[in-house]
């Protein structure tokens, strides 16, 4: 693979990453991210401009730029306007992408899909525009009205987009710095238990935001049902009630692992079995970090965010992180580490 020798993975990747992170060269890191995320936009722009320059005199004075379903040209643009539109199409989104990447503290490895789309889109656009210029040049004496752009060219550009998007996916995967605060599994907090001692930790957690949103939605739905008939209002009322119902949860840590149930009903419930948990710790989570309140899933992490603040963070055997916001998470994490360790010891003992 081309990427194997690339700077990020070079040396012993993660150690180097930690070294720089600890040295406070975060600036360097965000500049690198911005370059990786934004690179395809100026590259695609340069490609289109390159094709334009190379074709030079062969291009007609009016470029065919829009085509009917039959592949026949039906819209035309002058070369100057064409070049300005192309510059705007690539450089503005490129600048936005660079700005977002520089400002974000999330490793690209947790935003792989987004980076892949950011690679595929300019690749496809650049490909279509380059093919368009070629088609214009090929028409030659037939003039812009004779330019044809069959659908297979669009299909070809999609294939290029997928390939380049995949490249973006791979590149993003190289940036895998873990969020600050995650320690290695052996050093997590412990809660000493006597041999055979049973333990269970449980705590209720409520979300004022979800309760408020759900309640207001339910009331609005009810009002709408009166004003405009049940068909209009009842679905909204039902959704609002459901959101309000699940705004409260009970988090339990015991011999089975982590269980989260709705406060007022045993089902539905969410369970992470003990065998799938590598380690646990307590950390601060901001709702914005996972994209809002409720059950959130982003690349590399998922969880239940009912409010910002203290949260129980699990590192799963799959390498993903699972968080659930709850008070007194330190006790829960310590118990979970102890139980997981006990589970691993018994499993080993059983096999011997």
């Amino acid at each position, binding site marked *: 693979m081309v990427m194997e020798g690339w700077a990020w993975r070079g040396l012993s990747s993660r150690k180097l990453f930690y070294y720089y992170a600890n040295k406070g060269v975060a600036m360097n890191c965000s500049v690198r991210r911005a370059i990786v995320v934004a690179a395809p936009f100026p590259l695609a722009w340069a490609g289109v401009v390159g094709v334009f320059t190379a074709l030079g005199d062969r291009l007609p004075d009016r470029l065919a730029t829009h085509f009917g379903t039959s592949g026949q040209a039906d819209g035309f643009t002058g070369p100057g306007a064409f070049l300005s539109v192309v510059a705007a199409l690539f450089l503005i989104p490129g600048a936005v992408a660079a700005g977002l990447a520089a400002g974000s503290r999330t490793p690209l490895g947790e935003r792989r899909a987004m980076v892949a789309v950011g690679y595929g889109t300019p690749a496809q656009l650049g490909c279509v525009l380059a093919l368009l210029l070629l088609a214009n040049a090929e028409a030659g004496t037939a003039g812009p009205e004779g330019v044809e752009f069959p659908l297979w060219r669009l299909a070809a550009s999609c294939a290029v987009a997928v390939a380049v998007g995949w490249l973006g996916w791979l590149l993003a995967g190289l940036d895998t710095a873990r969020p600050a605060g995650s320690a290695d599994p052996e050093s997590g907090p412990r*809660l000493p*238990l*006597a*041999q*055979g*001692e*049973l*333990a*269970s*930790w*449980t*705590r*209720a957690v409520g979300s004022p935001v979800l309760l408020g949103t759900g309640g207001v939605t339910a009331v609005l739905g009810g009002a709408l049902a009166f004003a405009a008939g049940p068909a209009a209002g009842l679905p909204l009322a039902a959704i609002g009630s459901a959101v309000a119902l699940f705004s409260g949860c*009970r988090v*339990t840590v*015991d*011999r*089975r692992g982590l*269980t989260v149930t709705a406060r007022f009903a*045993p089902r539905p419930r969410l369970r992470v079995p003990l065998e799938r948990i590598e380690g646990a710790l307590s950390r601060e989570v901001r709702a914005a970090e996972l994209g809002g309140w409720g059950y959130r899933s982003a690349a590399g992490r998922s969880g239940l965010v009912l409010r910002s603040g203290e949260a129980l963070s699990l590192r799963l055997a799959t390498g993903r992180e699972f968080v659930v916001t709850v008070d*007194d998470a330190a*006790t829960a994490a310590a*118990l979970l580490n102890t139980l997981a360790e006990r589970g691993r010891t018994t499993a080993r003992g059983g096999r011997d």
Partner: protein
Amino acid sequence: MLFRVDPGSPVPLGDQIAASVRGALADGSVGPGERLPAARALADSLGVNVHTVLRGYQRLRDEGLIELRRGRGAVVSADHSPARARLLDGVQGLVVEARSLGLSDEEVLSLVRVRLASG
């Protein structure tokens, strides 16, 4: 809150569950009006019989620390105070210690009476 139960200990499991709640009330990690987990859920979680949990909850109700209501489960009494929970914790400790010394109930009571009479 954290429930801890050691089947190897001479103290009955129900009393150990009650002691866990008392401890949580005493250190303030559980407050008035807070709901304890349903007996069935806690029994499943710990891997003990549901009657064991109910015995523990009934003990707490007898001490006035929680209220048991059909359909509402176990709720910490509104007039509960951490100091009272600590006192009851002390009483529990006294009983356990006295039993381990082989004292009869009557002997324990007379010890307490003497202490109360001496002011």
